């Protein structure tokens, strides 16, 4: 794997949008061509080379390309948007949409991320060594097809709307979250290691949520069925198993109604 290192030298007055900083865009390009990749601030588009120093060289394909981002990227949106392969390591905080619509490859953020991280993610691995804001792994507005694949891990806490309209893949939040987990879910798995304020699995059709901490306000539409023992994310535990949301529609499979499942550590 070949590595390109991009060090941000100039901060925006507003915010930068860097949807073109992906292995897909960098692969096979010369240093000059990478320098010409556009990064925008409102209406103005700058060549990347005017705001950052660029070192190293990309691989021939995205899969052979690693991008390391140094400097302060906390006012930069859309890093890794729609990437399909390769790797990005960000040694900084980032702004919104980090790893949005990503299909493959790996992003590691050594810092905090803002909202819409991993929005409508379809594959790959997104690792946040820090905390996240709202709408982690959620759907774009109006789309009934939210996160469909991949693994999204946040080591810190997160806000609300985790995995809204989720259909597949896994989200792990190691800290606490506020409200709305797997709302409108139709698949996928969400693991919360910390505590949740409430609204877990509201309007969920299918999918699974594991909560290791507490849920302050349980949805009325979840019904306790049994206790199960399981090993989740390397941790073995006994969980109280609930099904729901009883207020939502549910498909049937082999004459059995399929519910969303909520597992709360005992």
């Amino acid at each position, binding site marked *: 794997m070949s590595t390109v290192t991009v060090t941000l030298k100039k901060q925006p007055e507003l915010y930068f949008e860097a949807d073109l900083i992906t292995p897909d865009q960098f692969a096979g390009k010369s240093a000059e061509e990478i320098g010409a990749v556009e990064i925008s601030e409102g209406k103005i588009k700058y060549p990347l080379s005017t705001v950052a120093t660029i070192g190293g060289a990309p691989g021939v394909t995205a899969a052979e390309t690693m991008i390391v981002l140094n400097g302060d990227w906390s006012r930069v949106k859309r890093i890794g948007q729609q990437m399909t392969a390769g790797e990005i390591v960000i040694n900084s905080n980032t702004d919104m949409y980090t790893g949005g*619509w990503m299909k493959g490859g790996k992003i590691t953020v050594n810092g905090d991320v803002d909202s819409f991280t991993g929005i409508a993610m379809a594959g790959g691995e997104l690792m946040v060594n820090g905390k996240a804001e709202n709408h982690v792994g959620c759907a*774009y*507005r*109006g*789309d*009934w097809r939210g996160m469909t694949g991949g693994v999204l891990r946040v080591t810190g806490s997160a806000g609300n709307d985790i995995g809204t309209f989720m259909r597949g893949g896994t989200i792990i939040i190691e800290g606490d979250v506020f409200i709305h987990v797997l709302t409108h879910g139709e698949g996928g798995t969400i693991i919360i290691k910390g505590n949740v304020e409430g609204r877990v699995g509201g309007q969920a059709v299918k999918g699974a949520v594991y909560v290791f901490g507490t849920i302050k306000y349980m949805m009325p539409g979840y019904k306790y069925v049994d206790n199960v023992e399981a090993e989740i994310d390397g941790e073995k535990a006994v969980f109280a198993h609930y099904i729901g949301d009883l207020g939502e*529609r549910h498909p049937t499979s082999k004459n059995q109604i399929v519910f969303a499942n909520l597992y709360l550590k005992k």
Partner: protein
Amino acid sequence: MTEYIIKNGCVVDPTQGINSQKMDICIKDGKFVDKVSGAAKVIDASGKLVMAAGVDIHSHVAGPKVDMGRLFRPEDKLFRSPMRGKNTRMEMGFSVPSTTKTGYDYARLGFSFVMEAAMPPLEAAHVHEEIRDTPIIDEGAMPVLANNWFLLEYFKNGEIENAGAYASWILNATRGFALKCVNPGGTEAWGWGLNCITIHDKVPYFDITPAEIVAGLMETNEYLRLPHSVHVHANNLGNPGNYTTTLDTLKLAEGFAPNNDFGREQVMHHTHIQFHCYGGESFKSDSFESKSKEVMDYVNSRKKLTVDIGQVTLDETTTMTADGPFEYHLTHMNHLKWSNVDVELETAAGIVPFVYDPATFIAGAQWAIGLEIALFAKDKDRCFVTTDHPNAGPFWRYPRIYKWLLSAKARNDVIENQLKYGGKVIDRTYIGELADKEITLYELAQMTRSGVAKALGLKDMYGSLKTGLAANVAVYDIDPANLPSDPEQYEKAFGSCFAFFKDGILAVEDHEIVNYSMPKKTVWVNSIVPENKQVKRDIRDKFLHSYTIALDNYAVFDEHVHNPYAIKVDITS
């Protein structure tokens, strides 16, 4: 004013019996003329096809439910909108395009006139606002009337003169073009969460049947001598086994004769008939079947009927119709979001996104049925290409439909390579029987130009290259003398015309939109009837007691109608 000459093109114009003749088309002062001076700007059309601009009889392009379709589907824009062009404004949306994209795309297809298919009278001002913001194309709009309380009462009592006086008032108040009938009676029943499935189901409270409503509308239409016939979307749309309802509805036309001065020969136009030609009892492949042949056999035998196809394009799209109960039915099938607007005393509308997935049997079968209708039609002047935009697919897919009709190869390619259940589709439909059938460019011109204009009663305005008419003409990169062997060329050429004139003004030049600021008309029918005191009193009464807006604020103010063009029809003289 600038003169133009479209030189050496290969012209197809069914209104003059011209079939692929090399000739020049001259334009002066916005009209077709016999000759122009040497100063005329030359458009070199050698090796290209020249046709009158297209005419769309049924498309949902402006108004409250179209706009709700835009509003509630942000995902229809995300990564699915073209980037803004050099000379144009932003164009947003895939299945429900913004007004700018609507105007531009129709121009790119070479269309000059589009009929908005359903205008709720109460919200007519909204339709006209959108028409103002839709560039290039002329438009008209049809007020929806088959569930209107006034008309239900007049039809119940057999008061056709009163119905006529009211319908005439509505056309004037809304600046509307024709009488639109959607799910007669069923949409009023939807006010109570109910529906009318057959033409003999009674409408709750009003105690009238869909059959009586459709017949009443036809009688009213001919009494008013309107340019267009009644425009019908029958009961029971989209349901397996509905073809009997369709035939029952079509047969209602038997008692009526066309009565107008516009050269229109039909008394009923049945729209998006693909959705109405289903047999069987469920959508499963062991039950569902095509009944297009049965329906088209009947249509072929009756000159008083015209149809448009409502072709499924196998896209993710947005369905929207004044057939409120149908949309409710649909949202229960696909579990996607559902919008609905019941409009007081008048109509309703429902909107649901829908994916015509070629990996399902039913989408393949619906795709086949639409094409069968077009191919079965004997008289191509009575069968028109539409997608019931955006219901069966977006209108800018028309070129793809042309390809499927012009090329058996293209059609068979879909069955073999795109449909997951192509074999089952052949089993359950007639598409296999039609495997070799292709239409000609002349027939295509009938189905998209001359026939459509005639059915709308607008043959003296659109769909023809006759001298003296407004110069609406398109030039395509197709050489009729040397038709392309690759059917994709049809889709490409018809999707981006080489040149397009709107009222003699060059709108598209060398495939690029070069002008979109020319005046565009709102075509409406100024119907004049004898004074009718009872109807006046009835109108005052309903506004006093039932409507929530004042009578004086109901009719669209003149200042809100953009560049109106009135077609006057006076039955008092």
